[in-house]
């Protein structure tokens, strides 16, 4: 982040709009995201946050606007112009998606080690020993006892499952991670541990992160920038401390004022 001008953005959202029939998903959302940058998207449920994540990850197609992504060969391309196979390869290698419910991002019926190893096999790793070695290493990094490598995720606690989902995503060293309420539904103490882990990993690996959350404390701790959404539109953006300490819009002021002090 020392030389802000020398690099192209990793991800560009340009006028993204999505209608579900007559129901607005989101309208005219634009932003740039660079490597090493964590952007939080905050707003109440129904504000279009999840629609935006689905648009960014090309799981749904926009009605208008486009998503541009700088590929590993440094060429920036329009996701809509990629073939299905290219998009799938991106999703399996260069992107990660951390769901609120780990069961959605994990395969609950196979072992923890296989959950992590699967992403490596999808990118062509074949050597069993190396896959297992890498899985062990990642379990360790997300603070899961490697002795649990052969256990099924159903035997894991909620916090462990979430950390396993993160390991599964990071094992291919992606550059972009999309997170949908990653700490929702976890105990406060478990949350703190997960937040600390995410903070460390995102700065260490220079990840670009889009973090959807309704928890402003989570946004404060993890993000550099905040985008506030309401009824499908972006109403305020800025550095995290700007938006939280000096909110400009009525709705943002309401959000900030509604937080219970701990």
């Amino acid at each position, binding site marked *: *982040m020392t030389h802000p001008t020398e690099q192209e953005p990793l991800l560009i959202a340009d006028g993204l709009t999505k209608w579900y029939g007559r129901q607005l998903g989101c309208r005219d959302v634009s932003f740039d995201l660079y490597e090493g940058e964590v952007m939080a998207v905050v707003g109440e449920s129904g504000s279009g946050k999840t629609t935006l994540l689905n648009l960014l990850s090309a799981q749904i197609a926009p009605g208008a606007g486009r998503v541009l992504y700088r590929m590993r060969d440094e060429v920036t391309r329009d996701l809509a112009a990629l073939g299905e196979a290219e998009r799938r390869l991106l999703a399996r290698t260069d992107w990660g998606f951390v769901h609120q419910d780990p069961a959605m991002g994990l395969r609950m019926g196979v072992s923890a080690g296989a959950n992590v190893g699967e992403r490596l096999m999808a990118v062509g790793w074949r050597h069993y020993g190396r896959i297992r070695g890498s899985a062990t290493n990642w379990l360790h990094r997300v603070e899961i006892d490697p002795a649990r490598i052969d256990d099924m995720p159903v035997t894991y606690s909620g916090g462990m499952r979430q950390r396993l989902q993160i390991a599964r995503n990071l094992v291919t060293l992606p550059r972009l991670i999309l997170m949908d309420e990653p700490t929702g539904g976890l105990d406060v103490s478990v949350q703190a*541990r997960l937040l600390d882990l995410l903070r460390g990993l995102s*700065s260490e690996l220079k990840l670009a992160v889009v973090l959807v959350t309704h928890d402003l404390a989570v946004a404060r701790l993890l993000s550099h*920038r905040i985008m506030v959404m309401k009824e499908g539109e972006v109403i305020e953006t800025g*550095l995290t401390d700007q938006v939280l*300490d*000096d909110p400009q*819009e*009525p709705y943002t002021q309401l959000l900030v004022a509604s937080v219970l002090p701990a």
Partner: protein
Amino acid sequence: MRPVLKLIGVSKTFTMHLQGGLRLPVVAGVSFSVHAGECVVLAGRSGIGKSSVLKMIFGSYRCDAGQILIQQGIARTDVVRASPRHLLALRENMMGYVSQFLRAVPRVPAIDVVAQLQFGNGTSRDGARARAADLLQRLNIPDSLQSLPPATFSGGEQQRVNIARGFLPERPILLLDEPTASLDSENCAVVTSLIAEKKKRGTAVVAVVHDETVRERIADSVVDLTQFAAAT
């Protein structure tokens, strides 16, 4: 020589939408300059907007009007108009800020809270930790506390961790918001000498301090914000 930091006509009004759009003018037309190695102390009664001015310089608060110019080599940047990304880079390279309270991060030991800003900066982690340990030691935070997260520390201890965190990086501008407010006289003296050392190394300091003795020892000039009070 050009000042490192220059404020021209800086104004700020808070609009409280939850109170029916109530407008609270804070300051208007704030102008002053700070040169390398100089310390400017902001003065005026409580509520006059001293902390707000510091926060505008750091970019946490937005300005309604004016310019906040930062000189970096031959480049000059206006904080008020800088993009978020540019502002982050500007902070990282140019500005240190010691807030009134430490925002404790769960689980992170005090020594890492202090050393963190140095990680991934070319210096090794061990090097950064060693410097952090020295600084904490000087501020009378013993080894035994350094490895604990500061959430359970006393107010004074937390503030000293906060000071160490803000003082460790060598940046051309240092913003201090009541750094000595919750400290005893011994620690107050330590902070005063730390500020003097910073000035000697060419740091431009802007400080809010109420303590008369501290103010007299560090201030090269005093800017009384009363003259910039916004008309209500």
